[in-house]
């Protein structure tokens, strides 16, 4: 990619510049390393340690949608019965058990207290009282309750009919058809399936690297790890949608260049977000990964966060998202709305309401300090 060879140098310069700029900030500034009285600020607690259960999430949270439980066979249009996609556990330290990312990522209430998580245990005992929460946190909590009620009303207003089973009667043997009527002929299905299978052995190494990065970057949390794999059905849906919209591209090109077949989410508190982003980039590069793309969506009306694409030294593409606890929570909350918007079965009118719902949720997410300073890479050429 043009200019790519300049990036590591550019990153180092940007990182140094950022550190210097932070040192020059007036004491007491949120990003300054110094307090008002000139003393250096203590290390910040891990984001997950400081998360508090939301009022209606004390029990196992069955009301949020999993953003990544994308298997249509497992997909539900009701947020109350959405199962998790079981994935093999690779974590040695029990930070993120399989299928728990909604609960773990959202509230921290169910984080495994066992096996080498002393700092997490310590953090849980030191959780601040609700009164100590920032005004932004409180308003986000209020907004979240409101949006959950709003979503319940939407479901009542637009009840979903049971989908008829997919009709394969006229399909050739070996072909694949999705619930949205996406189709891959036998050859395309074979290629897409092979591409997905070829990622799985490599994923273990990528996940290990990402876990190391998580250990090395201060104030960093890794959330949603149980759903790092895009499910086979969702993968094929996406391949089919792209194949249809880009007729000159071959099935192999599309399948092998799916950037989010394996994806990870790093989470930072708002105050640590920008530093966390740059620190993660530096750390990933030190582990031999190369960033191909970074898109800052903090000014987007439909989605807040930064999505990046990486290649391992062996050439495997994967995606890394950067969220705050609030933006990750919003992504989960709006996941079913997003599923419905992109479904061909939604009416134009319902789609409009879903779009508005996503916009409202997004507009309520507190934006991290200085996040607009993170430029897209490569810069968009319009």
């Amino acid at each position, binding site marked *: 990619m043009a200019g790519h060879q300049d990036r590591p140098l550019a990153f180092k310069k940007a990182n140094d510049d950022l550190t210097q700029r932070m040192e020059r900030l007036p004491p007491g500034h949120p990003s300054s390393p110094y307090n008002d009285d000139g003393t250096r600020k203590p290390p910040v607690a891990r984001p997950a340690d400081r998360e508090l259960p939301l009022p209606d999430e004390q029990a196992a949270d069955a009301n949020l949608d999993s953003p990544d439980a994308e298997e249509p066979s497992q997909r539900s249009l009701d947020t109350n019965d959405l199962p998790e996609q079981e994935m093999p556990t690779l974590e040695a330290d029990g930070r993120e058990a399989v299928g728990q990312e909604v609960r773990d990522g959202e509230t921290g209430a169910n984080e495994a207290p066992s096996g080498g998580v002393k700092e997490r245990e310590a953090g849980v005992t030191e959780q601040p009282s609700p009164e100590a929460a920032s005004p932004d946190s409180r308003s986000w909590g209020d907004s979240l309750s409101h949006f959950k009620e709003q979503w319940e009303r939407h479901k009542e207003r637009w009840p979903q009919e049971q989908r008829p089973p997919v009709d394969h009667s006229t399909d050739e043997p070996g072909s694949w058809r999705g619930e949205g009527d996406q189709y891959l002929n036998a050859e395309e299905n074979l290629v897409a399936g092979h591409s997905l299978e070829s990622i799985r052995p490599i994923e273990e190494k990528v996940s290990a690297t990402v876990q190391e990065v998580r250990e090395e970057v201060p104030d960093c949390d890794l959330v949603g790890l149980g759903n790092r794999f895009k499910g086979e059905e969702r993968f094929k849906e996406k391949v089919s949608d792209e194949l249809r*919209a880009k007729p000159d591209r071959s099935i192999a090109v599309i399948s092998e260049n799916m950037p989010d077949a394996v994806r990870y989410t790093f989470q930072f508190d708002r105050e640590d977000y920008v530093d966390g982003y740059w620190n993660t980039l530096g750390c990933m590069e030190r582990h031999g990964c190369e960033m191909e793309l970074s898109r800052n969506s903090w000014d987007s009306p439909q989605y807040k966060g930064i999505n990046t694409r990486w290649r391992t030294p062996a050439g495997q593409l994967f995606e890394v998202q950067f969220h705050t606890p609030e933006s990750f929570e919003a992504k989960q909350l709006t996941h079913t709305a997003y599923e419905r918007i*992109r479904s061909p079965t939604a009416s*134009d009118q319902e789609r*409009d309401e879903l779009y508005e719902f996503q916009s409202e949720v997004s507009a309520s997410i507190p934006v991290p300090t200085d996040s607009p300073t993170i430029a897209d890479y490569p810069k968009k050429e319009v």
Partner: protein
Amino acid sequence: MAEEITYYAIVDRWATPSDPAGLARRRRPDTGGFRDEALDRSLNWQFTPLIVEWERAESTDDLVEIDADEAERIIEQFRAKWG
């Protein structure tokens, strides 16, 4: 009020906005709501989730908004290739 249509060039790593990999559009009928479509090889407009995915940063490709004249030029380009 007439239907509003917004066109997007689908730009993957091998394409440019003037020579895109595909073409998508968002139709906003005067009855409300919207529907997204992409041009297929038969030059028919078919439902697509790509615009919604792009707005949610889930898209593989970038979409670049173009005007109706540019969209027409690109359709002719595709017609010459696929027609």
